[in-house]
């Protein structure tokens, strides 16, 4: 762990990524305690009596309000919870499936490997967007819960492929061979010898997977296939601001920026981890 931190510190990009992600997590965890406005509170005065449209950023509302008078800062802060939840939960689902399948394929090889590789290739070839849209269109009440599931069921293929490759090499390492010589069973070898030595690529793909999940959730919600109003989802907020894009730019701009910065942060962290963990790239 100490070593990892040392390696991460060497790369400015990785540090930036880590910083952005840390701030994001802190915001999601603690942000709501510092907010003055309920993200769901509609300003009736603004909507009914004085239909002037969204309020522009001011001291009162630092990022302005939307067309219903809801404080954008509050909604973006609450939105970070939604996007983190989706990103991390879907990543966990994808990682569990991907690691299990990749491990089985790489370790046992043979027909099992053939079937799993075939499944992985199919999952890759299948347009993920289409699957997401199809599922969200079919389920009775599209909700954030379905997004976890869909994203998790889409995202495993990449992780499975990475894990399979790594297992293939770790399996041939002499320490794995020596465990076999000691009489260790398959399960013991997989858990004690192979999995710990595959952690590096798993961590990297999981981090990058989070970035992908957040982005996909954003555009699914943008298309109305993800989070439903009045959930403060960033993608949904961009949709709501679309109509006002020309005149009240902040309704689109700030949630959009939030998406961009978050995704960038996770990607930077993922790349930084890759550089830190991959010994082949070390000291280049």
């Amino acid at each position, binding site marked *: 762990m100490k070593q990892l931190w040392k390696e991460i510190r060497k790369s400015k990009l990785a540090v930036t990524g880590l910083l952005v992600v840390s701030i994001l997590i802190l915001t999601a965890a603690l942000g709501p305690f510092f907010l003055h406005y309920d993200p769901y509170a509609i300003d009736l005065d603004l909507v009914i009596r004085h239909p002037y449209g969204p309020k522009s950023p001011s001291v009162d509302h630092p990022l302005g309000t939307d067309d219903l008078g809801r404080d954008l800062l509050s909604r973006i802060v609450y939105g970070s919870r939604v996007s983190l939840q989706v990103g991390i939960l879907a990543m966990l689902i994808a990682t569990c499936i991907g690691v299990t399948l990749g491990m089985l394929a790489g370790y046992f090889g043979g027909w099992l490997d053939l079937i799993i590789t075939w499944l992985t290739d199919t999952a890759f070839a299948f347009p993920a967007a289409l699957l997401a849209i199809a599922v969200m269109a079919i389920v009775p009440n599209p909700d954030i819960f379905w997004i976890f599931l869909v994203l998790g069921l889409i995202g495993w293929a990449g992780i499975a492929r990475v894990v399979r490759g790594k297992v293939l090499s770790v399996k041939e*390492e*002499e*320490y*794995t*061979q*020596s*465990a*076999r*010589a*000691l*009489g*260790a*069973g398959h399960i*013991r070898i997989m858990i*004690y*010898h192979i999995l*710990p*030595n595959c952690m590096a690529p798993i961590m990297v793909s999981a981090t990058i997977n989070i970035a992908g999940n957040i982005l996909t959730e954003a555009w699914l919600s943008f298309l109305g296939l993800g989070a439903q109003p009045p959930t403060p989802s960033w993608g949904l907020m961009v949709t709501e601001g679309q109509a006002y894009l020309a005149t009240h730019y902040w309704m689109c701009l700030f949630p959009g920026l939030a998406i961009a910065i978050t995704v960038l942060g996770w990607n930077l962290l993922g790349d930084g981890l890759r550089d830190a963990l991959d010994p082949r790239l070390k000291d280049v």
Partner: protein
Amino acid sequence: MSILLDVQHLKKYFPVRKGLFSRIGGFVKAVDDVSFSVGRGETLGLVGESGCGKTTIGRCILRLIEPSSGSIFFSGKDLMSLSNPDLRHTRRDIQIIFQDPYASLNPRMTIGAIIEEGLVIHGVGRRAERKARVADLMRQVGLQESASRRFPHEFSGGQRQRIGIARALALNPKLVVCDEPVSALDVSVQAQVINLLHELQDEFGLTYLFIAHDLSVVRHFSDRVAVMYLGKIMELAPASKLYSAPLHPYTRALLSAVPVPVPNRKTKRILLEGDVPTPLDPPAGCRFHTRCPVGKNELICRESEPEFREYGQGHFCACHFSVIS
């Protein structure tokens, strides 16, 4: 001396696949009909150039690689016919020390856990007993007990090899396959590790199959030595005989390459021409004839494979000209 390990007609062919549909295009004959035996408490040295199949033999004996054919008897049991649970049980008695101490220790496990693993797998003793055994082993191989909580990357090559030895000895094996245990180490450290292996042999009555590519290392360590070339044993003899009166031209060439620590002494190097032929398509007749200083132009060497015959007192050799030369 009773026989502990008896290898009969061991063959390992690795299929080479090529083309779009992975047709088997041929076989690399890594080990091609090898027979030998090792007596209880004996050390058999196995020497040969890189790629001659010596490591493959070691791994076949542990069944880390499945042999293509042949049989391996260990204390009278046929290892090839063992079912998986029996095999795992038998593995207690046969252990291996690997060549590269940097690759053979799991970087994510502590030294204590690495040495203890065999005991855990075979359910030996309770936790406290196992810890005591690990401490014992570490002392025996010359490591400090405090090292047990540290990780492999904190140790030098020689120390790591000692850890590897401790792991191999944890289960009180009868046979230890030493797969070039010192060739990755500095010369000064080599001597230490060799001496350690010697002491342990005396103490525990171990039997070694000592694989190496360095004749001078094997000389001081082995009771008998087998010389391999391209998947076959060329000569097998008691160590003193092999070094003083080698019968096979290949053995003589190898011996002439061993540096002698006497200044100004001119030794006649027998230089072999060319490279080792590919094991994918070994030469017909005697496999060595393409490079042999004796039989290069002899018809018999090109056409018939020499028999592996005994020339008295356990000295075996596979060469048509071994009597004459």
